[in-house]
């Protein structure tokens, strides 16, 4: 790239030597223009083009299209696409199904997020003791994460099978009544949350494990010399060091749990009696079973508003990068 662009001056904020942007790197400057070689390299947009086009087509366009759709009465059968203003939103806010499924989503998020963080932490702390069998522990805790939702639901609904399932057989052996794991309205959501913890806790476990391995060993050595016992070291060194990563894991987990669909759809299809149906399933049902695309889009955007709150929190730390 030897094209001269002496006439073009780079906007000051975009200069690569801007200390805020790239600390400690000034780059080689040419005597002729006083600009870094990097600034004279104008082919960047070619590199960004494929990603920009894909993002535009499959993210930006559907976002705008969906927004427009939410103001129409468009249906999947192709009829009607008149602009009907805020009618869909008005309907959504007075639709008890929206509130109910939204509540199921939040309830699932609470039920799953807490154990998904706590159990992951306990697992990581136990494995990080360096006790023998490292390979086995990692494998057992993380392997379920590699299973697809259809396998997870097949395995767990077999465990939950009434009467002949493993859990009911054990309960019978203990002289206990069988439980309607997936068929009792008071139990189903707990069963689904338990399956989810089993399935995805390995991911958070690995994040915690990586964070633990990042704690400098000197701190432990110093504490040992000072006579701090194992528990003392856990509470004064290990846990305080994990505060930041715990924040990140919690936010990531909240975002993931709010988007629940797969395992609920496959295990109970939202039942019994719609008692576990999450909002994404309501969107799916409205759009693809009842063909009301406009209304389904409106519900999507109501849901998006909820997610946005958490997504913004997630972005806060990385804003510096921009």
């Amino acid at each position, binding site marked *: 790239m030897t094209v001269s662009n002496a006439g073009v001056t780079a906007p000051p904020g975009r200069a690569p030597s801007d200390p805020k942007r790239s600390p400690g790197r000034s780059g080689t400057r040419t005597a002729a223009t006083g600009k870094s070689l990097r600034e004279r390299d*104008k082919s960047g*947009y070619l590199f960004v083009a494929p*990603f920009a086009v894909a993002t535009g087509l499959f993210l930006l366009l*559907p976002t705008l*299209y969906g927004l427009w759709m939410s103001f129409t009465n468009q249906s999947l059968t192709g009829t009607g696409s008149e602009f009907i203003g805020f009618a869909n939103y008005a309907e959504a806010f007075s639709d008890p199904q929206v509130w109910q499924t939204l509540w199921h989503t939040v309830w699932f998020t609470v039920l799953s997020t807490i154990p998904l963080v706590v159990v992951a932490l306990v697992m990581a702390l*136990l494995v990080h003791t360096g006790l023998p069998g*490292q390979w086995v522990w990692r494998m057992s805790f993380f392997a379920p994460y590699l299973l697809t*939702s259809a396998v997870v639901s097949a395995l767990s609904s077999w465990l939950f099978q009434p009467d002949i399932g493993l859990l009911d057989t054990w309960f019978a052996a203990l002289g206990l009544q069988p439980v309607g794991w997936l068929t009792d309205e008071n139990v189903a959501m707990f069963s689904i949350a338990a399956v989810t913890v089993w399935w995805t806790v390995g991911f958070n476990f690995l994040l915690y494990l990586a964070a633990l391995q990042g704690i400098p060993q000197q701190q432990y050595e110093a504490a040992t010399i000072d006579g701090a016992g194992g528990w003392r*070291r856990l509470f004064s060194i290990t846990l305080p060091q994990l505060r930041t990563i715990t924040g990140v894991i919690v936010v*990531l987990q909240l975002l993931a749990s709010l988007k629940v669909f797969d395992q609920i759809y496959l295990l109970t299809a939202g039942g019994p009696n719609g008692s576990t149906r999450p909002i994404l399933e309501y969107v799916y049902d409205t759009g693809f079973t009842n063909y009301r695309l406009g209304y389904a889009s409106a519900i999507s955007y109501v849901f998006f508003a909820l997610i946005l709150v958490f997504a913004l929190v997630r972005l806060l730390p990385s804003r510096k990068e921009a």
Partner: protein
Amino acid sequence: MSVAELVADRRTRAQQERAENRALTKLTIGPSPWVRVASLAALVVLAALWLLPVAWGAVTSFKHEAEAALPASWWPTMGWTLDAYQQVLSNSDLLIWMWNSLVVAGLVTLLTVLISAMAAFAFSQTVFKGRSLLQWLTIASIMMPGQILIVPLFRQMQVMGLVDTFAGIVLPQIVAPVMVFILKRFFDAIPSELLDAARIDGAGTWRLFWTIVLPLSRSILVAVAIFVFIGAWNNFLWPFIVTTDPQFMTLPVGLSTVKNAYGVQYAQNMASAMIAALPLLIVFMLFQRRIVQGVATTGMGGQ
């Protein structure tokens, strides 16, 4: 490196690891044998609990269908059999779905890594008009959950004629703004003197990207690829929406339709679950270290 050397290398590494682990045990739980035994017991219980569903599924899959429907027993009285596997492999599209999943996840991974790395390189090491605006847009799009786009995206696929095609399954999955930022952060650390030296030697931007930036970033590229592959392999919602023809279904979607067709054939259900679970589990056993590292470095979303 010869096989003998490789084995010796592995052995010394394992020895090193054992020594490190012993030191770690001393540092974290100290000399108390009781805490050590209690921790080990907790690990055993947790691991058993975590392996239980898969173990139970595996046992069931080797039973006769008639016995699978009897109250649960770990040791079948009618003997072990491969019947369920034979049935599933000959009577369902399982192998087709597996192949589809492999193609889809492979394409998603390849395209995602390629376009994300290119964009990250552009953001990190070049200057062009509108760069800040595009970067800002990319960050904003991290917040956009793909799940809420299913309705307009499906309509769009209908218009584009991509329903029931691999392109329709793959393309919407290749937009991964988070990965762009993970890669950008890595590329930022490449010394600009290195790139400038190549530029002075007359290397074009493509050469810079292919021969310097990518080879230097192999570890992070592998990490991102692993992460994207697992996600694509397991993705359910989008392939479920965009495919209706069993010939184009991916494994998760196809399996979910089988469940209803088979009704009460538990052994066969478990056999297909086992077959479906196998590929990624084998890959994990082979590349455990890399996968653990890859998930840990990319899982935080670049934070």
